[in-house]
């Protein structure tokens, strides 16, 4: 490993933070979903880097499972967004506030 592990973790942290800020700041429900995917990807990078550093394949198996969950989440979430758009005519997260305080 010519690039030390902390640098990979740092890259993962930067991508995760960008995703988290986007999740807070963006109001389009689809883009909010994409930010979640970005955060999952950042965590996957950390998993792979640590797995490589320890020489342990378990991290790669975890990434496989994270991808499965992300795909399931995207399918169900986008179906919900589609149905919300049909019912309310908007996917702006500020206007979908039935379940907020």
């Amino acid at each position, binding site marked *: 490993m010519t690039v030390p592990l902390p640098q990979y973790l740092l890259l993962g942290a930067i991508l995760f933070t960008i995703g988290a800020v986007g999740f807070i700041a963006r109001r389009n429900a689809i883009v909010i979903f*994409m930010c979640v995917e970005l955060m999952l990807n950042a965590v996957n990078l950390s998993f792979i880097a640590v797995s490589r550093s320890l020489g342990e394949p378990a991290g790669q198996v975890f990434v496989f499972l994270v991808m499965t969950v992300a795909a399931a989440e995207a399918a169900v979430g986008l179906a919900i967004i589609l149905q919300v758009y049909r019912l309310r005519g*908007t996917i702006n997260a500020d206007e979908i506030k039935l379940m907020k305080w």
Partner: protein
Amino acid sequence: MAESVIFYLFGGVAVIAALFMVTRHNPVSCAMSLVVVMFCLAVLFLGLHAPFVAMMQVIVYAGAVMVLFLYVIMLLNLSDEELGRTIVTPLKLFGGLVGCLFLVALVVLVQGDYGEGGAVNPSFGGVAQIGKELFSSYMLPFEIASVLLLAAIVGAVVIAQREQK
């Protein structure tokens, strides 16, 4: 040497594309930027002896998931008014500030001596090794993942269908 060049090149592109994704107004531009991030991460995975995961990244994320996103964006056919300008409110500025603090905390947390990651077996992370792990030590999670996917397929179809009149 080659590994660090690849790391800084593709890591930098990934961060720029991620920033692009968060700041673009048009959801299609956001989706395309996210595809760039995923391809860059796939390259980094290859450099980290994870060819199987790199392939999965391209096929599942950049392929299937992003096509699903683009499909929904096209299906909704949002008007420009609906897309809206991103208005900077005090709350969002506060969110950005909290994000920066969060980044600082993460940076402090990941510093430390992890030791040198020594050389690994050339077959490390290959399809054969991950396949063996999945079907031996991680058999139960693997099967549960298949049930989860089935539930997601059925759930997505049921949620997205129009109500019968």
